[in-house]
């Protein structure tokens, strides 16, 4: 087992390097860091420009890209990150704050969403074919076909704009973490600001996981070993929990780990609409400015996350399902 995990981990290292190099090339070509710098800082002196090129390693040609990449990587791991092109700010503190905000939003929404989704999936799988099944299934389908910004717009329209018209004050705030001018930590205000964005993300997650759970559990419930379990004379509850749920959750754990990218994608969109200062907002802001020094750490971080969770998916499947051989 340990050897299997270690080998996968070892494989992940070149994967990270290759993928992030490709990302580096894509960003170098796509954002054209020098042109972006000149566009944002139109009165930069020749010396400043030269300094910018050197700290960022913006060399040309394939060899130059390779050299620049490793220079960037060295700076990245030693926390010697180049400054942003707009306002020449430190990238790490902003990135860290954004990451914390995103983690707060993402973990809350994912936790709530998976819990509701799995429960709903079990709820309908136990009685398939009826009105309950049709309703939940159709609802999940509508939710999957609804992009997060659409549900966000509708929620904002109802709970902020029209609530204000009907009742004199809006029920929930539509942007930020705190109201403008607020100083210090305030749990209640923070939660209030999180309600709408969390709802938007939760809707997406619930829809997806309800369908996963329903399909997975139905397959298990129709399998022959469920009949064997019942023929033993154990309680129906034990049959469901020990035999059905346990087996139905195995593929879902794996899917959940792979799905992390989709969840992050939903978060990015949601953050932008609610002006929530998280990683999504950070990325889109950097993208609009063509801010290479801000985007590269972001992309590197996300590559790590994606590859890590792919690894988690592989390993968790091998751990949870004894049928998988560990030889590969």
């Amino acid at each position, binding site marked *: 087992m340990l050897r299997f995990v270690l080998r996968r981990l070892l494989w992940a290292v070149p994967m990270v390097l290759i993928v992030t190099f490709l990302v580096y090339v894509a960003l170098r070509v796509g954002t054209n860091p020098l042109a972006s710098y000149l566009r944002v800082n139109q009165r930069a002196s020749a010396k400043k420009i030269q300094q910018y090129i050197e700290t960022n390693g913006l060399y040309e040609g394939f060899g130059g890209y390779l050299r620049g990449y490793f220079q960037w990587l060295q700076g990245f791991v030693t926390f010697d990150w180049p400054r942003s092109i707009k306002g020449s700010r430190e990238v790490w503190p902003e990135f860290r704050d954004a990451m914390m905000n995103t983690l707060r939003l993402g973990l809350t929404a994912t936790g709530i969403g998976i819990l509701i989704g799995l429960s709903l999936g079990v709820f309908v799988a136990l009685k398939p074919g009826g009105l309950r099944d049709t309703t939940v299934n159709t609802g999940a389908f509508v939710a999957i076909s609804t992009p997060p910004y659409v549900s966000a717009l509708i929620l904002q329209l109802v709970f902020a704009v029209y609530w204000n018209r009907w009742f004199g004050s809006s029920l929930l705030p539509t942007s930020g973490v705190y109201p403008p001018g607020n100083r210090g930590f305030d749990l209640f205000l923070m939660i209030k600001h999180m309600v709408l964005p969390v709802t938007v993300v939760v809707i997406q997650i619930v829809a997806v996981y309800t369908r996963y759970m329903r399909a997975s559990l139905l397959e298990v419930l129709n399998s*022959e070993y469920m009949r*064997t379990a019942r023929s*033993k*004379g*154990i309680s129906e509850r034990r049959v469901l929990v020990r035999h059905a749920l346990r087996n139905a959750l195995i593929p879902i754990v794996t899917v959940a780990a792979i799905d992390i990218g989709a969840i992050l994608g939903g978060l990015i969109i949601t953050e932008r609409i609610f002006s929530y200062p998280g990683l999504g907002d950070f990325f889109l802001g950097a993208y609009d400015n063509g801010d290479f020094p801000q985007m590269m750490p972001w992309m590197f971080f996300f590559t790590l996350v994606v590859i890590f969770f792919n690894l988690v998916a592989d390993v968790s499947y091998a751990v949870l399902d004894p049928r998988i051989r560990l030889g590969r």
Partner: protein
Amino acid sequence: MTENVLSLRDFRVTFPTLFGDVQAVRGVDLDVRAGEILGVVGESGSGKSVTFLGVMGLLPKSARISGSATVGDTELVGASSRIMREVRGRRVAMIFQDPLSALNPTHRIGDQIVEMIQAHNKVSTKAAMSRAIELLAEVGIPQPAERARQYPHEFSGGMRQRVMIAMAIANDPEVLIADEPTTALDVTVQAQILEILQRIQSELNAAVVLITHDLGVVARVADRVQGMYAGRVVERGSVESVYDHPSHPYTRGLLQSLPTVGRERLQPIPGAPPNMMDPPSGCAFRVRCPHAIERCADEMPSLLPVGDVESACWRADELSKVVGA
């Protein structure tokens, strides 16, 4: 020897569907005596498996079951789930056709047997596990202690079926229902499994119901045989009498479709089993029967003694006199 451990009277199973009711089992009478092996034979779709799944309460909730099924003096039709739980695995145990899909792929073999033991006995997991290992040894699994820690996919088909048997006999059941236990296995393995079943049966003195479409299997191990067609019993009696003097045209046809040394050609039964949504009137077999008469369409024959056997055919008397099979 004549004590009945499992009795069915007018046992019926109906599946409601969108297009109408499927009458899978239409009034089966059956007695299983203590310590015997009863073979239940029939084509697929004849209702033989459904009958016993219905007795065990293992059919989908939509199935409608009526009539009577008693184990000892416990009535199972309409019984509470508490009573059913006491019967299942304790008094009546079941072995299924495909031992790979019948075992939970994510639980260890030993744990699956332990679960069976602990469902009916208040014993420690440790004690149950040592009992499980004993059981594995009893059904001829080498190195049972190591094998108990393995998963079903690490076992061969025959070994898995042995596990199923070990699990089924864990609580000394009165009746062991084996639903096509050898169909999914190789011929050589089939023989081993049948041998084990026979041995277990004589050691435990349990009754065994052997559901199969293979008349050869029945001839080898069963004491009595019961033929089913279209959800009804068509003939029953001791294996020797039925095989020597089949009195029902269906049983006769089945025997003629068996390969035997010295016979030139196999004679399959023409036609296919009827649609159970709308079974033919009278005797369901008459549409495929070479001996059918008008009466067969009007009246459904019931089981009547003919010589040593009981047969549900209006012409059983004449047919049993003709030496044909």
